[in-house]
């Protein structure tokens, strides 16, 4: 099964706002019909070099209320496009949570994650098994996996591709 990821941890704080912190509002190209090049602006208000420093597969580890503020899906897409494989947060804003599933950005909710992971730690994630392995500290953390139908959407890549699967199976 897919939904296994390996990468280096990047640590961020609480209450990261969609338009203020995750992607500058004026860079979202609201109203444009494409969602290209959003990754170039991912987290640049917090760390201007972030998109250049991230390696494909890296993992964001953040605090509480991740993705608060407006529901602009450009923020989720910016994170995905800049190469982040998964976001682990102590808690998620509900709109950010929902958009992540729909656009296919894997997420894990884990209270206290920042006590268990330091910047640069190597992590291995398994969303189906509900496991976070911190290779750097040789500790394994367990969490309750998302329900299967949400994992199905993540696996399909986005909600539209998931609908196409359901159409092909004659379910909708």
């Amino acid at each position, binding site marked *: 099964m897919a939904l296994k990821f390996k990468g280096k941890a990047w640590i961020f704080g609480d209450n990261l706002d969609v338009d203020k912190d995750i992607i500058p509002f004026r860079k979202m190209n609201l109203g444009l019909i494409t969602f290209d090049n959003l990754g170039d602006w991912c987290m640049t208000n917090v760390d201007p070099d972030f998109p250049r420093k991230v390696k494909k597969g890296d993992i964001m580890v953040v605090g509480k*209320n991740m993705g608060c*503020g407006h529901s*602009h899906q450009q923020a989720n897409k910016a994170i995905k496009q800049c190469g982040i494989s998964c976001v682990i947060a102590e808690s998620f804003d*509900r*709109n950010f949570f929902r958009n992540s599933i729909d656009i296919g950005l894997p997420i894990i909710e884990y209270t206290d994650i920042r006590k268990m992971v330091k910047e640069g730690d190597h992590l291995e994630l398994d969303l189906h098994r509900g496991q976070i392995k911190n290779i750097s500290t040789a500790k394994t953390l367990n969490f309750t996996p998302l329900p299967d139908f*949400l994992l199905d959407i993540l696996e399909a890549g986005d909600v*539209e591709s*998931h609908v*196409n699967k359901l159409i092909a199976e004659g379910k*909708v």
Partner: protein
Amino acid sequence: MGKTIVEKILAKASGKKEVSPGEYVEVRIKTYIQVSSDGGGTPMPETFVKFGWDKLWDPSKVVIVPDHCGSYTPLSYDATNNNRENHRRNSEWARNMGVPEENILDLGRVGNCHHMGIEEGWALPGSVYVHADTHSMTVGGVGCFGPCVTASMAALLRTGLTWFRVPESIKFNITGKLQDGVMGRDVYEYILGQIGPAGAIYQVMEYTGPVMDEMSMDGRLSMCCLSIFTGAKLGIVNPDQKIIDWFKARTNVPFEPQVSDLDARYIKTYNYDGAKIEPQVVVPPLRHTVQNISAVEGIKVTNAFIGSCASGRDEDMRIAARILKGHKVHPGVMFNITPGSSAAMMRSAQEGVIATLLEAGCFICAPGCGMCPGYYTPLTKNEVCITSSTTNYPGRMGDETAQVYLGSPATVAASALEGKITDPRKYL
């Protein structure tokens, strides 16, 4: 064990006897679904082409609204990034998909998308109502469950189905009576000041008590519209007779309003004395630095704005007119008032409210989002704005050096009059 209004709405919508917080439910959407040319949403015509979809779940339930961010202005000077163009594309697509002509609305019949669900009777009490924009939760003010479903929208239009996680509810019991000049807006910002930006993460804020019973529909809608800024899934108010009457006058579609049981389970209850709430002001650059007005009185402003999904309703324009009547807007201030919808603008014109505002020197903008997202009369370098719109981070309403203070429509009007942040109570 009793159930909350939200648990009851979700149980009914998912065809279950009852649901509990934490559970995931699948829901078939029965209300109208608005497709507006909004900023965060998924572009429908392109997405349908990309995934090879050639039909809508139920075209008769789809409405096209030329929102979002000032459908009358380009988003930039690039002709491909233009809201009129977006609207034309959406309308053509909808026609081809079999959406009835009367569901394809254009300027003159519309306004801000979140005002529309209420004006047209689409967001029915007791129902699940979906929209792609953050502030769809506004409709909680009439007892409708309306969380935004931004990136789900295309899939939902194709299948009619979507999912929700049943949220926990927090009860906010506001007792006593508000002072004249203290509005629903102030009650919400006061609560934000008390519980902070992460005070209700993924939860429902259910507003109850004597203050809510007294409060107009407009005030309730404004409070629910803002509930996102405490991290909430949505805010909601149990609908009463005035809400039911409003919808009965607007739609023949049957609806079943729901209200919370007396023994419903809340994760927390907060009690606040409404009489003690002062006009509140949110100070930039953060959305959650909330102060009593006395702490910021006297700060000079260059712009004032009433409008957006958080205001621009009848009551908001009425109170501004009450404060401005017989006075002039301060010469150093541009005061933009943007009615939320054509219908609200017409009622205000009939009442004489619009004439009073024009006499005072206000700029009345065409119904829509107005200055809120910075597309219409954007703030320029170092300007200072007081507004009853939704949010205030740098660059939101124009130039990144401009500062945005948030307050109630009454506070905005009094401040526009004096050219500095002013307590509205002395004008009432």
